[in-house]
């Protein structure tokens, strides 16, 4: 495989509703920004780009089959090659990885990855119904299909087995909303307290409205290139930031559509097949897990995402890293729910299974230098969702994973101040970051590692 560089990106403003433009025109906002950021005009870039990968989740929301070709047409990319990918909430992350494959394989030198979702065309509760159709329509949806309900069930099990508390979940909400205060692309830029989160309307116990992301309209785009692609663009006048941002790790995992069908594996199988290299190497951690299993924990059960663990382990091996908490400078992860951020801390090896709640409230995942109004016992170690994540930016599904990629590119380029007009969210000396995209109740998960060269 050839080296692949993520050189630019753009994000439209995410909003509850964007009736002012059709979806192709919203995508063009992100696309134009990505092109302009490397100093090229539309015609020059269009001449050089080899093709694209398109990302959107739902034909129901779009009420338009083959929507991607309308975007391809609007962006002036016909007749160049393109295809649409779909994998629920992970659609954007899958799109990013498919674009990576197009370049890494030698099929393309310059590939555009773009995604969108327009979720405002139906009322919120009808939107929830559409999303719930991403659960088994024979067995799960008819029982009361509602994703917030599915995730809340995971939380109650996590609470019961590991002692996780609703207040620990609320720390994630406070963190991500406050981070977003400095991100002009976010739509919920708020200074909250733990009490605010807990006193918000209860949606699915114990998750309140402030534990849950919002359906949104929006688009995002990234440009991935080979070394040859880089030369072509620069020969045409592109000004591409140095040091370059390279995609060094790609991982993807899957799990059963029905959450109820996930296995409950024993300790030995977990250690052999799912434990991180760091966990395997630690006597203390092996003893910790042995104790969990002796008290009834089984893996993944409904409290954990083996697809996330699989994707993370695969990406880490590819990127040659083994201590994610200390070797990653930030993570943009799929926090559709505060609880799923906590579960994902564990899947990604930022802490051990069962310790996500305590990790959330410790301060390790917070940005340094921001006043969250919380008493945090520990210093920041690896900021998680410095952008504000899905909870504060919103979740226009097909765009979300690409939005994460754009924010990661800007972090690693050191250009957050330029794009946000505020340097507060710039992770100092950011050298390596991960993006994590997640579907369903953990059915598809992607993890990609990006690194600044040099």
């Amino acid at each position, binding site marked *: 495989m050839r080296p692949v560089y993520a050189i630019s990106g753009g994000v439209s403003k995410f909003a509850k509703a964007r009736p*002012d*433009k059709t979806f192709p025109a919203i995508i063009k906002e992100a696309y134009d920004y990505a092109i302009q950021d490397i100093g090229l005009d539309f015609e020059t870039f269009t001449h050089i780009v080899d093709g694209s990968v398109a990302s959107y989740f739902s034909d129901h929301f779009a009420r338009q089959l083959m929507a991607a070709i309308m975007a391809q047409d609007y962006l002036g990319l016909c007749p160049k090659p393109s295809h649409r990918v779909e994998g629920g909430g992970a659609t954007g992350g899958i799109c990013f990885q498919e674009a990576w494959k197009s370049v890494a394989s030698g099929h393309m030198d310059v590939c555009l990855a773009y995604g969108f979702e327009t979720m405002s065309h139906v009322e919120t509760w009808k939107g929830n119904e559409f999303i719930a159709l991403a659960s088994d329509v024979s067995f799960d949806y008819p029982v*009361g299909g509602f994703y917030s*309900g599915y995730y809340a069930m995971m939380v109650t099990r996590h609470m019961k087995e590991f002692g996780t508390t609703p207040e620990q979940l609320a720390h994630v909400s406070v963190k991500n909303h406050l981070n977003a205060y400095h991100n002009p692309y976010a739509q919920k830029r708020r200074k909250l307290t733990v009490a605010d989160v807990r006193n918000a309307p209860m949606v699915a116990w114990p998750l309140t409205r402030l534990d849950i992301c919002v359906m949104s309209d929006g688009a995002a785009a990234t440009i991935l290139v080979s070394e040859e692609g880089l030369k072509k663009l620069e020969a045409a006048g592109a000004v591409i930031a140095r040091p370059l941002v390279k995609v060094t790790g790609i991982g993807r995992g899957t799990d059963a559509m029905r959450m*109820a069908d996930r296995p409950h594996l024993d300790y030995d199988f977990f250690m052999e097949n799912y434990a991180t290299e760091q966990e395997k190497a630690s006597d203390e951690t092996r003893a910790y897990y042995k104790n969990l299993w002796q008290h009834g924990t089984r893996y993944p059960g409904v409290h954990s995402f083996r697809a996330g663990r699989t994707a993370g382990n695969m990406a880490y091996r590819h990127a040659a890293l083994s201590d994610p908490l200390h070797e990653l400078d930030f993570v943009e992860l799929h926090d559709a729910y505060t609880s799923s951020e906590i579960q994902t801390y564990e899947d990604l090896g930022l802490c051990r299974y069962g310790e996500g709640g305590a990790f959330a409230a410790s301060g390790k995942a917070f940005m340094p230098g921001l006043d969250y109004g919380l008493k945090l016992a520990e210093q920041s170690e690896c900021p998680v969702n410095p952008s504000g994540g899905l909870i504060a930016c919103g979740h226009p599904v097909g765009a979300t994973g690409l939005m994460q990629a754009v924010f990661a590119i800007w972090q690693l380029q050191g250009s957050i101040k330029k794009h946000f007009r505020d340097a507060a969210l710039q992770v100092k000396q950011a050298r390596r970051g991960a993006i994590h995209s997640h579907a369903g109740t953990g059915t598809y998960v992607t993890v990609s590692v990006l690194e600044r060269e040099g």
Partner: protein
Amino acid sequence: MSKLPSRREETLGGYIVHGVPFPLSTDPEALEFLKQMAPIQIEQDYQITYLHSYGQDSPWFAGLANKRLLASRDAKSGYTYANPRGHDMFSGAETRWIDITEVPAQVHAFTVCYFGSEEFLPDCPFVLSLIEFEGVNTLLLTRLMGVDPQAPTLDWIGMQVEPHFLRNSKLKPTDVYFAPKE
């Protein structure tokens, strides 16, 4: 005193319009002004009736209609699925049906939905739960009755429960629900 709503509920819907504001002439200045125009939004109905087949899982629904809860088991390993599954995920072999109606069951996880998807809003609040069965390797998503949705507690996890069946089958998974064992 409970908090009263301070905003009126919004609804979709509108009037049939017999005239839309538009420049009287399409001179360049007027055409340029159209860039300032607010978007027109219309309603589009979208209603479908699907003919959905339960396929090889059909006997499970027939079982519910006859007040029996079936499960699928791999004959060789004994791995058992609370949700029916025609083929075992490990061996690929065809599973066989077993009856778990009388098998001891308990709550594995739950939530109370105070909101829901549009179809289920009239049911709110309702309790969703995952049930574990003795000797069964996977769980079953179901409604839990007989507990107070206004007073959820983690103590519900581990509670012994038993299946109840609707008298009038709808041929849906909601033909069975669970309640605390009496």
